[in-house]
């Protein structure tokens, strides 16, 4: 039995649940919005982990669960735990939800079956240059990069590479912008900033699910295709094939980061080279499944059910 956890209406969870239903795979859903009404027990004994979860009914033995797909949110941001008008949030309900979600996070870490993905495996997302070291160690190139709080170094880097972009290096999402020579660099002195040589070519978003690889080529004139339509650029997407050695490196990189599923941002240059920008450990794959017709959710559901 598959356990889905998160907000069931969120697209990646919704698609995975729909896929399990379509494939006839047994599953249960832990709706995080109802967390205050669910119960969980974990025990560590001489036989290892055991436990049970109650989701609005009889307890479900954790031993009957084959895989877990979780996209949990910070409990405090959910609507039912916010203040309503002048009424403060229900502190007891918030604490119950926090206790459940905290223990559920522990379950995700130590559950012996398939977990997509374990919270501790999200760590590489906290440092993009740290993650880049894992990327290059697996035979994938990354753009030439400078992280500095020295404005003169930025100018020298631009002179060396021509067109350069800047973006965040942490898990905080940022829109990629091109840096134009002559732009004020005073802010760089206050906080080290990442600059990268601009790599020309086609963006290829690659999703790894276990041993399966789904690559989607993205046609967009925007510097950051994720925000292209907002900036008036059209975005088109279609399924594509990666060279086998690139696909194998993507699988190996995903495993090395402790992930079962990943969203890897690649770019194929006009001369056929592949560059890797980053690995997303909690990919919102639904956009790519819907735009490029990739069977990602059904592959995920089979993997979680242990069905080949």
């Amino acid at each position, binding site marked *: 039995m598959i356990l889905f956890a998160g907000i069931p209406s969120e697209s990646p969870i919704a698609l995975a649940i729909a896929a399990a239903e379509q494939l006839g795979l047994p599953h249960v859903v832990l709706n995080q919005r109802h967390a205050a009404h*669910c*119960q*969980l*027990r*974990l*025990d*560590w*004994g*001489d036989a*290892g*982990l055991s*436990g*049970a979860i*109650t989701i609005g009914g009889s*307890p479900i033995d954790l031993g009957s669960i084959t895989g877990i797909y979780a996209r949990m949110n910070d409990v405090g941001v959910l609507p039912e735990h916010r203040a309503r008008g002048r009424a403060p949030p229900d502190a*007891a309900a918030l*604490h*119950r939800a*926090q*206790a*459940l979600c*905290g*223990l559920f*996070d*522990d379950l995700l*870490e*130590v559950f012996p079956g398939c977990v997509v993905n374990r919270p*501790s*495996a*999200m*760590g*590489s997302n*906290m*440092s*993009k*240059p*740290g993650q*880049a*070291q894992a*990327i*290059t*160690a697996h035979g994938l*190139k*990354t753009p*030439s*990069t*400078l*992280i*500095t*709080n*020295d404005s003169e*170094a930025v100018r020298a880097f631009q002179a060396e590479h021509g067109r350069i972009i800047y973006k*965040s*290096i*942490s*898990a*905080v999402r940022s829109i990629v912008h091109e840096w134009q020579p002559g732009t004020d660099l005073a802010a760089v002195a206050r*906080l*080290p900033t990442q600059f990268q040589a601009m790599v020309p070519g086609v963006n290829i978003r690659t999703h790894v699910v276990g041993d399966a690889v789904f690559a989607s080529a993205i046609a967009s004139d925007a510097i950051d295709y994720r925000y292209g339509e907002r900036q008036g650029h059209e975005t088109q997407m279609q399924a594509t094939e990666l060279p086998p050695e690139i696909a194998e490196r993507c699988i190996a990189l995903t495993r090395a980061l402790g992930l079962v599923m990943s969203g890897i941002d690649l770019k194929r240059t006009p001369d056929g080279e592949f*560059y890797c920008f980053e690995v997303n450990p909690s990919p919102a794959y639904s956009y790519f499944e819907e735009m490029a017709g990739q069977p990602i959710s059904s592959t995920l559901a089979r993997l979680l059910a242990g069905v080949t």
Partner: protein
Amino acid sequence: MRALILGHALDPTANAAAAALHQRGGWQVIRHDIAGLAGARWHQRLAADGVITTRIETADGDIGACDVVLNRLGSAQALAFPGWSPVDRAYGQAEWLALLLSWLIALGGRVIGAPAGSELCGPANRPWLWMAAAARAGLVVHPGGATTSIRQFPPPRGSAERPELLAAAASAGPGDRATGHAAAVVAQCELLLVGDAVFGGVDPGPAVRAAALALAAAQRTPLLALTLAQAVDDPQWRFVAADAAPVVAEGAPLAALADLLQARAA
């Protein structure tokens, strides 16, 4: 040889290690806390093929590539960014964390107290992760558990409270509550691992010592403190908890830490 010791000015391990290296002679010991690092001029270059270089210009010169680093850095949230908005401050802390992680990862085996995941001086595992890691390493884990409702899932009779097994304690309603628990303990001991050396007032036997060293190796941390316990009618020493940033400030463990720094620098 140059040793870079990172941590708060009052960190007893950082202070003791610095003093021990000075006493041995032949060392240039450089101390910095996280604010000192944030005040430096940074240049980190990553080439397309993965070659990474970091230059960190401070009053002590470039500290980007010392011979060995003892890392005791805490959270990047110690960076205050006075005058910044809360959103900008959180962003600044996240970006500094990312850069410090990248630098320390690139230094590889030269760092004692290497980062793990998103932790600067890790691994700062939750208790359940330590229990699973300890079991994989061959240690027998002291029985314990947690429940979000003692009414629906009551702890075993005779068990003791172990609140840290639940990330967030809570009342679960009238007459109910969430709690962590563990089997009652009749004896407890601490082991301190420094490199290949194991220190402690009680000898738990060669099998436990070997498994403890295997746990440290699997977690890639040469410094590790372990808490072991014996349950009622059971002479077996069982794993309870671990700390990958223990205090090592005196005696034979401190000498072993100085040896370890010397070996890593060589």
